[in-house]
């Protein structure tokens, strides 16, 4: 049977990888520390625009944020539900295009268009989910690739709606009560809040009973359906949830680029999203943002060391895949686990691993 690389066998392993609720899963005594951590994150976000140049803020940080938001939808699908979807750029593109079309072709108010785009994300996810509800594993990957490429070609060929190859230029991000989102700092804060919001939302879903069903889908489809769950309905709902964050990513990307064209969702972009998520690692949603940051940095600065940027990107990607089961995040978490074990060895107090969960796989 098909098993994603992180299909796990017992709970303590899960815990060691920080999967179950991540930092929140430990004793309640650590909550204070967690709260402090979040405050630090908040402070870091607040301080970012002061610390980095305007250019880095826009082209590295904001870009990584929206790419990470789009990537988190894929990280959610892979990490939680074991669904490798290459159709997330299709969702992303649907939302972005819808907003651009409504504003630039039909003179619809920007906020109505944004709302429509945010709804279009889960709806597109739902449709993709319905189409692919019976597939799994590598078949699902190929089916969603076909959907992703179909949407790209639709954007390129169906001119009455999409303006063909040229796409939409000159899209101005909105102004909220005098705060102009075409400026970098406001756009950064909006993107950062959106990123935090998306991660929180996806984690809430992951910790709900639905999330349990998703992991059932990932680890053992047969057992899931034996428990009375519909694998089809579970698949469809996972796609819809992921569609929401891909749609937000699409909206932010159009604000960032001021444009959308078939080139924004072509096969290179489909592959790039997969690379982002794989480099980051899928055991935690935050991996997508890490991956987005690494890819964005490579794309912007690698050509200062080499004439062959793409070879470097590809090679870095291959090395990370070869050395880590879970991308960069996996490397960090491994290192942390090892450090903890070392502490334990020297008599440090560590919480005991709980009783192992019953094995989900023989």
């Amino acid at each position, binding site marked *: 049977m098909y098993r994603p690389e992180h299909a796990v066998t017992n709970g303590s392993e899960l815990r060691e990888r920080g999967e179950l609720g991540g930092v929140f899963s430990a004793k309640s005594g650590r909550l204070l520390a967690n709260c402090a951590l979040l405050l630090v994150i908040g402070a870091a976000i607040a301080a970012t*625009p002061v610390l980095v140049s305007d250019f880095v803020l826009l082209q590295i940080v904001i870009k990584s944020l929206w790419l990470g938001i789009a990537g988190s939808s894929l990280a959610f699908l892979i990490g939680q539900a074991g669904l490798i979807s290459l159709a997330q750029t299709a969702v992303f593109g649907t939302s972005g295009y819808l907003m651009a079309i409504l504003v630039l072709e039909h003179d619809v108010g920007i906020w109505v268009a944004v709302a429509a785009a945010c709804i279009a994300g889960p709806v597109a996810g739902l449709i993709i989910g319905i189409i692919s509800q019976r597939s799994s594993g590598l078949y699902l990957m190929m089916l969603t690739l076909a959907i992703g490429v179909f949407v790209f070609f639709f954007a390129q060929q169906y001119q009455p709606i999409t303006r063909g190859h*040229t796409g939409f230029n000159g899209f101005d991000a909105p102004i909220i009560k005098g705060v102009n989102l075409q400026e970098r700092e406001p756009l950064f804060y909006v993107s950062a809040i959106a990123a935090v919001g998306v991660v929180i939302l996806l984690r809430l879903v992951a910790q709900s009973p639905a999330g349990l069903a998703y992991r059932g889908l990932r680890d053992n489809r047969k057992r899931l359906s034996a428990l009375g769950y519909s694998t089809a309905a579970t698949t469809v709902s996972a796609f819809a949830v992921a569609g929401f964050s891909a749609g937000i990513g699409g909206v932010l990307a159009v604000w960032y680029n001021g444009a959308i064209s078939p080139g924004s969702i072509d096969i290179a972009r489909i592959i790039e999203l997969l690379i982002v998520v794989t480099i980051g690692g899928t055991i935690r949603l935050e991996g997508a943002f890490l991956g987005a940051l690494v890819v964005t940095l490579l794309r912007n600065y690698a050509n200062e060391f080499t004439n062959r940027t793409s070879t470097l990107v590809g090679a870095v990607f291959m090395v990370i895949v070869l050395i880590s089961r879970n991308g960069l995040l996996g490397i960090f978490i491994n290192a942390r686990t090892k450090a903890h074990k070392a502490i334990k060895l020297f008599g440090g107090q560590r919480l005991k691993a709980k009783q192992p969960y019953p094995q989900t796989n023989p």
Partner: protein
Amino acid sequence: MQTNNFKPLWRLVTLLAVFCLVIAACGNDDDNADEPPLAAQATTAATAAATANVPDQPSAPSEPTEVPSEPTPRTQEITIGAISTLDGPFAGLGDFSMHGVKLALMEYGGVLDGSGTRDGVSGASVAGVPIRLVIEGSDATPDVAVEATRKMVEQDNADIIIGPLSGDEGLALKDYIRDIPAVTLVNGTSASQDLTLRDPAPNVFRFGADGAMWAYGVGTYAYEGLGHRRIATIAEDYSYPYDQVGAVLTEFCAAGGTVTDRIWVPLGTQDYSSFIAQIPDDVDAVFFAMGGTDAINFVKQYDDFTGQAIPLIAGPTAVDQSVLTELGDRAEGMISSGPVVDDSGLANFNAFAARLDEVFDGQTPNIFNVYYYIATKSALAALEMVGGDISDGSSAFQAALTDLRWDTPIGPVYLDENRQAVVDIYLREVQDGAQVTIDTLPQVNATLGFERDSYIAKGSFSRNNPPCG
């Protein structure tokens, strides 16, 4: 689930975090209102202009006052950023473009840093001001082109941008560069009509022709010179071929000819056989407009399938010198119009060809190296006219560019009111693998000689515009 007991607390924490974020965001926003001098240089002007959305004012007088905290403008160095397609399907054309840029800089004392495409040129100077070259590549998508250009403008402080290569990249860069009046874009080979024809930007200059101008004259010649009455067209399905087909049909239909089929091939097609099968038997000629790989695939397959029983008339880039070698004998005798011919005999052209051959080891002139050379050299010439001083927000420099007239390797050039060049176009035929002149069509303008307002009112060329007959 074992995390259930933490749920309420978890919610509380998240709420708290978001609250912190919002507070932090607003607080910081206020702080930064006093901060702009920190983020000095071009970026300040960029954001300021973006906010104010300054209209068509190349020399906006308010501009310098918005950036008061710059006592010493960058007189020590001027940076030229060149962008072309260095990745993806058009990567080979990107190499040609950079040859042109580097040749122009070498005429101003520059020395090649190395033989790689991304290796720059150092030591060039204009009126005693050193010129620095930075090079960025795109993959022909607008998003990547804008990011690469933004990097050159903001990170490398580029004052002048040379490029881009493809049409839709040009349109995207126009929107970006319009908001930064102090930065000047001199177009490379982007041939989209609307880079300059409709809604032009004051700091965008094109010293070459657009796609429609490149195809000028061949429609009339097909009707009058070759006696064709019915033609079919086959072309890639996007804006640049629309412009070429549009220009040809505008003339051909005005002369009295008719078009039976307009076949549009989706980008990304490699096997043209089923499109070739749609070409009717009873036409006098087939006009095809394609570039790079597509041109080679199409001509080869058309030749295999029909033996060229119905003659081909080529679009300007379809038989450009950059693909002519690969087309080989199949291109012999093909008629086209375009900007570059090998037998013009112009002294500047011969000098350019000789330098190209010498510096870049056997390279020959084509649209890409010639156009990027002209763009770069125009920029350098205008810089020379203002003594290398662009400290006034480039307004004197842009004025000098606007008034610039010079004899390029492919003929005399000057700009119209939209900063679009009026150029010579050649009617040409492929003979022994070279483009040979049939006729020179002097002073072709952006409206192909038609009255301006009515020409613009006809709308952009598309799959079925212009109508014919």
